Protein backbone atom coordinates (compact mmCIF):
# COMPACT_ATOMS: atom_id res chain seq x y z
CA UNK A 1 0.00 0.00 0.00
CA UNK A 2 1.25 3.43 -0.92
CA UNK A 3 1.85 5.15 2.40
CA UNK A 4 2.51 8.62 1.08
CA UNK A 5 -0.90 10.06 0.52
CA UNK A 6 -1.49 12.63 -2.15
CA UNK A 7 -3.09 15.96 -1.35
CA UNK A 8 -5.46 17.63 -3.76
CA UNK A 9 -4.02 21.11 -3.88
CA UNK A 10 -3.59 21.92 -7.53
CA UNK A 11 -4.47 25.61 -7.34
CA UNK A 12 -5.34 25.74 -11.03
CA UNK A 13 -8.33 23.46 -10.36
CA UNK A 14 -9.70 25.55 -7.53
CA UNK A 15 -12.06 28.42 -8.07
CA UNK A 16 -11.11 31.56 -6.18
CA UNK A 17 -13.82 34.12 -5.52
CA UNK A 18 -12.97 37.79 -5.99
CA UNK A 19 -12.28 38.49 -2.29
CA UNK A 20 -9.67 35.71 -2.33
CA UNK A 21 -8.03 37.22 -5.40
CA UNK A 22 -7.89 40.67 -3.81
CA UNK A 23 -6.41 39.11 -0.69
CA UNK A 24 -3.56 37.39 -2.51
CA UNK A 25 -2.94 40.54 -4.55
CA UNK A 26 -2.68 42.48 -1.32
CA UNK A 27 0.03 40.10 -0.22
CA UNK A 28 1.87 40.22 -3.54
CA UNK A 29 1.80 44.02 -3.68
CA UNK A 30 3.15 44.11 -0.12
CA UNK A 31 6.18 42.09 -1.18
CA UNK A 32 6.64 44.28 -4.25
CA UNK A 33 6.57 47.38 -2.11
CA UNK A 34 9.14 45.95 0.26
CA UNK A 35 11.52 45.21 -2.58
CA UNK A 36 10.68 48.59 -4.09
CA UNK A 37 11.86 50.31 -0.94
CA UNK A 38 15.37 50.06 -2.43
CA UNK A 39 14.29 52.47 -5.16
CA UNK A 40 12.37 54.62 -2.75
CA UNK A 41 15.29 55.06 -0.40
CA UNK A 42 17.66 55.55 -3.30
CA UNK A 43 15.47 58.28 -4.72
CA UNK A 44 15.01 59.96 -1.38
CA UNK A 45 18.69 59.75 -0.54
CA UNK A 46 19.79 61.07 -3.90
CA UNK A 47 17.19 63.83 -4.08
CA UNK A 48 18.14 65.16 -0.68
CA UNK A 49 21.88 64.77 -1.03
CA UNK A 50 22.52 67.68 -3.43
CA UNK A 51 20.92 69.74 -6.20
CA UNK A 52 22.66 67.48 -8.70
CA UNK A 53 21.28 64.39 -7.04
CA UNK A 54 17.81 65.94 -7.09
CA UNK A 55 18.11 66.67 -10.77
CA UNK A 56 19.35 63.17 -11.46
CA UNK A 57 16.24 61.66 -9.86
CA UNK A 58 14.06 64.16 -11.65
CA UNK A 59 15.65 63.46 -14.99
CA UNK A 60 15.42 59.75 -14.54
CA UNK A 61 11.71 60.00 -13.80
CA UNK A 62 11.21 62.34 -16.73
CA UNK A 63 13.16 60.52 -19.39
CA UNK A 64 14.22 57.03 -18.39
CA UNK A 65 11.59 54.52 -19.46
CA UNK A 66 12.76 51.92 -16.96
CA UNK A 67 12.59 54.41 -14.11
CA UNK A 68 9.11 55.44 -15.25
CA UNK A 69 7.99 51.82 -15.32
CA UNK A 70 9.38 51.17 -11.88
CA UNK A 71 7.75 54.31 -10.51
CA UNK A 72 4.44 53.40 -12.12
CA UNK A 73 4.66 49.85 -10.86
CA UNK A 74 5.42 50.91 -7.33
CA UNK A 75 2.73 53.58 -7.31
CA UNK A 76 0.24 51.01 -8.62
CA UNK A 77 1.25 48.51 -5.96
CA UNK A 78 1.00 51.22 -3.35
CA UNK A 79 -2.44 52.20 -4.62
CA UNK A 80 -3.75 48.66 -4.45
CA UNK A 81 -2.12 47.86 -1.13
CA UNK A 82 -3.55 51.09 0.27
CA UNK A 83 -7.13 50.46 -0.91
CA UNK A 84 -7.10 46.79 0.07
CA UNK A 85 -5.60 47.80 3.40
CA UNK A 86 -8.52 50.13 4.02
CA UNK A 87 -10.83 47.25 3.15
CA UNK A 88 -9.06 45.16 5.80
CA UNK A 89 -9.48 47.89 8.39
CA UNK A 90 -13.18 48.17 7.55
CA UNK A 91 -13.58 44.43 8.02
CA UNK A 92 -11.73 44.63 11.32
CA UNK A 93 -14.27 47.19 12.36
CA UNK A 94 -17.01 44.74 11.44
CA UNK A 95 -18.25 46.39 8.23
CA UNK A 96 -19.36 44.14 5.41
CA UNK A 97 -18.32 40.83 6.96
CA UNK A 98 -20.83 38.78 5.02
CA UNK A 99 -20.93 37.15 1.63
CA UNK A 100 -22.53 40.08 -0.15
CA UNK A 101 -20.48 42.73 1.66
CA UNK A 102 -17.26 40.82 1.08
CA UNK A 103 -17.92 40.56 -2.64
CA UNK A 104 -18.97 44.18 -2.93
CA UNK A 105 -15.93 45.42 -1.04
CA UNK A 106 -13.68 43.33 -3.24
CA UNK A 107 -15.34 44.78 -6.35
CA UNK A 108 -14.93 48.32 -5.04
CA UNK A 109 -11.29 47.60 -4.20
CA UNK A 110 -10.64 46.42 -7.73
CA UNK A 111 -12.39 49.39 -9.32
CA UNK A 112 -10.75 52.06 -7.16
CA UNK A 113 -7.30 50.57 -7.48
CA UNK A 114 -7.73 50.23 -11.24
CA UNK A 115 -8.51 53.94 -11.35
CA UNK A 116 -5.46 54.66 -9.19
CA UNK A 117 -3.25 52.57 -11.46
CA UNK A 118 -4.41 54.60 -14.46
CA UNK A 119 -3.95 57.89 -12.63
CA UNK A 120 -0.48 56.83 -11.50
CA UNK A 121 0.36 56.11 -15.13
CA UNK A 122 -0.90 59.52 -16.19
CA UNK A 123 1.13 61.18 -13.48
CA UNK A 124 4.34 59.36 -14.29
CA UNK A 125 4.04 60.04 -18.00
Amino acid at each position, binding site marked *: *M*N*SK*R*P*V*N*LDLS*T*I*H*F*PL*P*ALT*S*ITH*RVTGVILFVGLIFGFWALDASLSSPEGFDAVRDALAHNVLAKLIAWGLLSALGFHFVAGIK*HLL*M*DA*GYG*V*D*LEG*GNRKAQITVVISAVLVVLAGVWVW
Partner: protein
Amino acid sequence: MSNLQVSVYRYNPETDSAPYMQEFQIDTQGRDLMVLNVLTMIKDQDSSLAFRRSCREGVCGSDGMNMNGTNGLACITPISDVVKDNKLVLRPLPGLPVMRDLVVDMNLFYKQYERMQPYLQNDTAEPAIERLQSPEDRDKLDGLYECILCACCSTSCPSFWWNPDKFVGPAGLLQAYRFLADSRDTATSSRLAELEDPFSLFRCRGIMNCVSVCPKGLNPTRAIGKIREMLLSNAT
Protein backbone atom coordinates in the same frame (compact mmCIF):
# COMPACT_ATOMS: atom_id res chain seq x y z
CA MET B 1 -28.32 15.79 -25.16
CA SER B 2 -28.47 14.89 -21.54
CA ASN B 3 -25.12 13.14 -21.40
CA LEU B 4 -23.09 14.75 -18.67
CA GLN B 5 -19.32 14.57 -18.81
CA VAL B 6 -18.02 13.77 -15.37
CA SER B 7 -14.36 13.84 -14.51
CA VAL B 8 -13.52 12.22 -11.18
CA TYR B 9 -10.34 12.27 -9.13
CA ARG B 10 -9.22 8.68 -8.61
CA TYR B 11 -6.61 7.31 -6.29
CA ASN B 12 -6.35 3.89 -4.70
CA PRO B 13 -3.30 3.60 -2.44
CA GLU B 14 -3.01 -0.13 -3.15
CA THR B 15 -2.66 0.17 -6.88
CA ASP B 16 -1.96 3.77 -7.85
CA SER B 17 1.32 5.59 -7.37
CA ALA B 18 -0.34 8.90 -8.16
CA PRO B 19 -3.87 10.21 -8.51
CA TYR B 20 -5.45 10.63 -11.94
CA MET B 21 -8.71 11.89 -13.40
CA GLN B 22 -11.19 9.39 -14.80
CA GLU B 23 -13.93 10.32 -17.25
CA PHE B 24 -17.51 9.07 -17.05
CA GLN B 25 -20.57 9.69 -19.19
CA ILE B 26 -23.78 9.99 -17.22
CA ASP B 27 -27.22 10.12 -18.77
CA THR B 28 -29.14 12.60 -16.64
CA GLN B 29 -32.26 12.31 -18.79
CA GLY B 30 -32.44 16.05 -18.61
CA ARG B 31 -33.06 16.09 -14.86
CA ASP B 32 -31.36 18.54 -12.55
CA LEU B 33 -29.87 15.87 -10.30
CA MET B 34 -27.90 16.50 -7.18
CA VAL B 35 -24.19 15.80 -7.54
CA LEU B 36 -24.60 12.92 -5.07
CA ASN B 37 -27.11 11.28 -7.43
CA VAL B 38 -24.55 11.54 -10.20
CA LEU B 39 -21.94 9.92 -7.97
CA THR B 40 -24.32 7.09 -7.13
CA MET B 41 -24.92 6.54 -10.83
CA ILE B 42 -21.19 6.39 -11.42
CA LYS B 43 -20.80 3.89 -8.59
CA ASP B 44 -23.39 1.69 -10.29
CA GLN B 45 -21.05 1.63 -13.30
CA ASP B 46 -17.86 1.31 -11.28
CA SER B 47 -18.35 0.05 -7.74
CA SER B 48 -14.73 0.79 -6.86
CA LEU B 49 -15.37 4.54 -6.62
CA ALA B 50 -15.11 5.65 -2.99
CA PHE B 51 -16.92 8.61 -1.49
CA ARG B 52 -18.64 9.30 1.81
CA ARG B 53 -22.36 9.94 2.15
CA SER B 54 -25.00 9.53 4.81
CA CYS B 55 -28.05 11.73 5.28
CA ARG B 56 -28.34 12.85 1.61
CA GLU B 57 -30.09 16.03 2.76
CA GLY B 58 -27.30 18.37 3.81
CA VAL B 59 -27.32 17.89 7.56
CA CYS B 60 -24.67 15.25 8.31
CA GLY B 61 -21.71 16.79 6.47
CA SER B 62 -20.33 13.56 4.98
CA ASP B 63 -20.10 14.40 1.32
CA GLY B 64 -18.09 17.60 1.25
CA MET B 65 -16.04 17.72 -1.94
CA ASN B 66 -14.70 20.06 -4.55
CA MET B 67 -17.10 20.40 -7.48
CA ASN B 68 -15.84 22.32 -10.50
CA GLY B 69 -13.41 24.12 -8.25
CA THR B 70 -15.78 24.98 -5.41
CA ASN B 71 -16.27 23.12 -2.15
CA GLY B 72 -19.76 22.05 -1.18
CA LEU B 73 -21.99 19.15 -0.21
CA ALA B 74 -22.70 16.84 -3.11
CA CYS B 75 -26.16 15.95 -1.80
CA ILE B 76 -27.59 19.49 -1.88
CA THR B 77 -25.72 20.82 -4.89
CA PRO B 78 -27.82 20.55 -8.05
CA ILE B 79 -25.66 19.96 -11.10
CA SER B 80 -27.13 23.12 -12.64
CA ASP B 81 -25.30 25.10 -9.93
CA VAL B 82 -21.85 23.84 -10.79
CA VAL B 83 -21.74 22.28 -14.24
CA LYS B 84 -20.01 24.38 -16.88
CA ASP B 85 -20.01 23.44 -20.57
CA ASN B 86 -21.72 20.18 -19.68
CA LYS B 87 -18.70 19.15 -17.61
CA LEU B 88 -18.57 18.23 -13.96
CA VAL B 89 -15.17 17.91 -12.28
CA LEU B 90 -15.17 16.20 -8.89
CA ARG B 91 -12.12 16.34 -6.66
CA PRO B 92 -11.57 15.63 -2.96
CA LEU B 93 -11.56 18.49 -0.47
CA PRO B 94 -8.32 20.42 -1.01
CA GLY B 95 -5.45 20.39 1.42
CA LEU B 96 -6.15 17.17 3.32
CA PRO B 97 -4.43 13.85 2.59
CA VAL B 98 -6.46 11.60 0.30
CA MET B 99 -7.32 8.14 1.61
CA ARG B 100 -8.94 7.03 -1.59
CA ASP B 101 -10.71 8.77 -4.49
CA LEU B 102 -12.95 11.46 -2.97
CA VAL B 103 -12.33 10.43 0.63
CA VAL B 104 -9.92 12.59 2.60
CA ASP B 105 -8.34 12.04 5.98
CA MET B 106 -10.11 14.54 8.23
CA ASN B 107 -8.01 13.92 11.34
CA LEU B 108 -6.20 17.26 11.29
CA PHE B 109 -9.54 18.98 10.89
CA TYR B 110 -11.04 17.12 13.85
CA LYS B 111 -7.94 17.73 15.96
CA GLN B 112 -8.33 21.48 15.52
CA TYR B 113 -11.99 21.17 16.47
CA GLU B 114 -11.11 19.22 19.61
CA ARG B 115 -8.46 21.76 20.54
CA MET B 116 -11.22 24.35 20.91
CA GLN B 117 -12.72 22.31 23.77
CA PRO B 118 -16.04 22.22 21.96
CA TYR B 119 -18.21 21.54 24.98
CA LEU B 120 -19.93 23.68 27.52
CA GLN B 121 -17.84 24.44 30.59
CA ASN B 122 -19.58 25.83 33.60
CA ASP B 123 -18.02 25.85 37.04
CA THR B 124 -21.21 26.59 38.95
CA ALA B 125 -23.38 23.89 40.50
CA GLU B 126 -25.97 22.35 38.21
CA PRO B 127 -29.53 23.36 39.11
CA ALA B 128 -32.25 20.75 39.52
CA ILE B 129 -33.85 21.88 36.29
CA GLU B 130 -32.26 23.43 33.21
CA ARG B 131 -30.02 26.50 33.38
CA LEU B 132 -32.09 29.47 32.36
CA GLN B 133 -31.15 31.43 29.27
CA SER B 134 -33.01 34.38 27.82
CA PRO B 135 -34.22 34.10 24.22
CA GLU B 136 -31.90 37.03 23.40
CA ASP B 137 -28.89 35.16 24.78
CA ARG B 138 -29.99 32.04 22.96
CA ASP B 139 -30.26 34.01 19.73
CA LYS B 140 -26.53 34.68 19.97
CA LEU B 141 -25.92 31.00 19.22
CA ASP B 142 -27.84 31.13 15.95
CA GLY B 143 -25.46 30.93 13.03
CA LEU B 144 -22.92 29.12 15.22
CA TYR B 145 -24.33 25.85 16.57
CA GLU B 146 -25.59 24.72 13.15
CA CYS B 147 -22.11 23.76 11.92
CA ILE B 148 -22.08 20.20 10.56
CA LEU B 149 -18.29 19.71 10.48
CA CYS B 150 -18.25 19.04 6.74
CA ALA B 151 -14.88 20.84 6.43
CA CYS B 152 -15.91 22.67 3.26
CA CYS B 153 -14.80 25.95 4.87
CA SER B 154 -11.47 24.93 6.36
CA THR B 155 -10.41 23.12 3.20
CA SER B 156 -11.20 26.18 1.08
CA CYS B 157 -9.06 28.37 3.33
CA PRO B 158 -5.52 29.06 2.10
CA SER B 159 -4.41 29.84 5.65
CA PHE B 160 -5.54 26.34 6.66
CA TRP B 161 -3.83 24.79 3.63
CA TRP B 162 -0.47 26.24 4.66
CA ASN B 163 -0.74 25.66 8.41
CA PRO B 164 -3.37 22.99 9.14
CA ASP B 165 -1.50 21.99 12.27
CA LYS B 166 -1.31 25.49 13.73
CA PHE B 167 -4.20 27.53 12.35
CA VAL B 168 -7.45 26.29 13.86
CA GLY B 169 -9.34 27.06 10.68
CA PRO B 170 -12.79 28.55 10.19
CA ALA B 171 -14.79 25.53 11.41
CA GLY B 172 -12.92 25.23 14.69
CA LEU B 173 -13.00 28.96 15.30
CA LEU B 174 -16.74 29.08 14.64
CA GLN B 175 -17.10 26.42 17.34
CA ALA B 176 -14.81 28.34 19.66
CA TYR B 177 -17.06 31.35 19.32
CA ARG B 178 -20.19 29.19 19.72
CA PHE B 179 -19.03 28.52 23.28
CA LEU B 180 -17.58 31.98 23.93
CA ALA B 181 -20.98 33.40 22.96
CA ASP B 182 -22.93 31.02 25.17
CA SER B 183 -24.20 32.81 28.27
CA ARG B 184 -23.96 29.49 30.13
CA ASP B 185 -20.23 29.00 29.54
CA THR B 186 -17.75 30.24 32.13
CA ALA B 187 -14.44 29.28 30.53
CA THR B 188 -14.09 32.50 28.54
CA SER B 189 -10.61 33.44 29.68
CA SER B 190 -9.04 30.03 29.11
CA ARG B 191 -10.72 29.79 25.73
CA LEU B 192 -9.35 33.20 24.75
CA ALA B 193 -5.87 32.38 26.06
CA GLU B 194 -5.73 29.39 23.73
CA LEU B 195 -6.27 31.69 20.75
CA GLU B 196 -3.92 34.59 21.40
CA ASP B 197 -0.86 33.25 19.59
CA PRO B 198 -0.02 34.34 16.02
CA PHE B 199 -1.40 31.18 14.38
CA SER B 200 -4.47 29.71 16.04
CA LEU B 201 -6.80 32.59 15.20
CA PHE B 202 -4.70 35.41 13.84
CA ARG B 203 -3.64 33.51 10.75
CA CYS B 204 -7.09 34.35 9.38
CA ARG B 205 -6.54 36.93 6.63
CA GLY B 206 -10.17 37.72 6.04
CA ILE B 207 -10.18 35.97 2.67
CA MET B 208 -13.77 34.83 3.26
CA ASN B 209 -13.58 31.68 1.16
CA CYS B 210 -15.15 29.98 4.18
CA VAL B 211 -18.21 32.21 3.99
CA SER B 212 -18.59 31.71 0.28
CA VAL B 213 -18.62 27.89 0.48
CA CYS B 214 -20.45 27.14 3.75
CA PRO B 215 -23.41 24.92 2.79
CA LYS B 216 -25.27 26.05 5.89
CA GLY B 217 -24.79 29.76 5.15
CA LEU B 218 -22.73 30.30 8.30
CA ASN B 219 -20.13 33.02 8.67
CA PRO B 220 -16.87 31.96 10.32
CA THR B 221 -15.15 35.21 9.33
CA ARG B 222 -17.58 37.18 11.43
CA ALA B 223 -17.13 34.80 14.36
CA ILE B 224 -13.36 35.22 14.10
CA GLY B 225 -13.81 39.01 14.15
CA LYS B 226 -15.95 38.73 17.27
CA ILE B 227 -13.33 36.60 19.03
CA ARG B 228 -10.69 39.18 18.07
CA GLU B 229 -12.83 41.89 19.58
CA MET B 230 -13.08 39.88 22.78
CA LEU B 231 -9.31 39.35 22.83
CA LEU B 232 -8.73 43.03 22.22
CA SER B 233 -11.08 44.25 24.91
CA ASN B 234 -9.60 41.71 27.29
CA ALA B 235 -6.04 42.83 26.67
CA THR B 236 -6.33 46.61 26.47
